[in-house]
């Protein structure tokens, strides 16, 4: 097995790429996908420390995160479909209904 730092840096890289995606993209679907990427990067950390300490609790939490990601994707995509039906757009900077 590689040293823990390797996995930590991999996770860090994925996390930062996800952050850049959330901030710069305009398409809301791609923003949601970037959030999935961030959650995935966190999962690598949890599994890594679970492996180091030989304790399955980290993997349990990773499983919960996957369940959360599924719930979040379902809700988020439902909102996107409902919004598209009303406003015919999925661009984040045209979603300004509350901007008054």
């Amino acid at each position, binding site marked *: 097995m590689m040293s823990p730092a390797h996995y*930590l840096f991999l996770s860090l890289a994925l996390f930062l*790429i996800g952050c850049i995606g959330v901030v*710069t993209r305009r398409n809301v679907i791609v923003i949601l996908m970037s959030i999935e990427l961030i959650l995935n990067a966190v999962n690598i950390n949890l599994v890594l420390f679970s492996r180091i300490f030989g304790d399955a609790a980290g993997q349990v939490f990773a499983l919960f995160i996957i369940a959360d990601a599924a719930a979040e994707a379902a809700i988020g995509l439902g909102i996107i479909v409902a919004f598209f039906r009303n406003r015919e757009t999925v661009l984040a900077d045209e979603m300004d209904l509350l901007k008054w």
Partner: protein
Amino acid sequence: MLDSILFYFFAGVAVLSAALMVTRRNAMHCAVFLITTLLATAGIFLQLRAEFLFIAQIILYVGGIMVLFIFVIMLVRLDVPIHQMRFRLQKWVAVFVALALGFEITTILLFARKLPGQGLFIQESFPADKLPPNSEALAQSLFSGYLLPFEIASVLLLVAMVGAVVMAKKKERTDES
């Protein structure tokens, strides 16, 4: 040796396709590159001896969540030409902030090496031949110590399912009410 080759292969694929995912314009390409990243991460999980999560990642993420994403991408019309970003500075600000954050965390990780005790670079991991069977250990932990969060997660999934159906449903004409 084999370990490091596998690690660098999976890590390279993951980081490269994540970067491509963030930069491609076409949302469908983004989804495909995200799938590649998730599969590479599943390989990392397998290398970390988390076989159950390896399978769960492939079945749930790639088989479930990403199919949902691709369905919505196909439902929603995206052929509107996405014109140039109005606020071009935003990209550079984002890259700068991300680099600053990365520098910060890297400094902390490198500094941790100088602390007494086992640093993160030489930390001995749990001996691989003494690990219990993965699914068994996971199930033991999940159904004994984390039973309540498990039940709460099932309620969360139910709520999400109902919420998604309600939100994506077509508005009915409310004539009779």
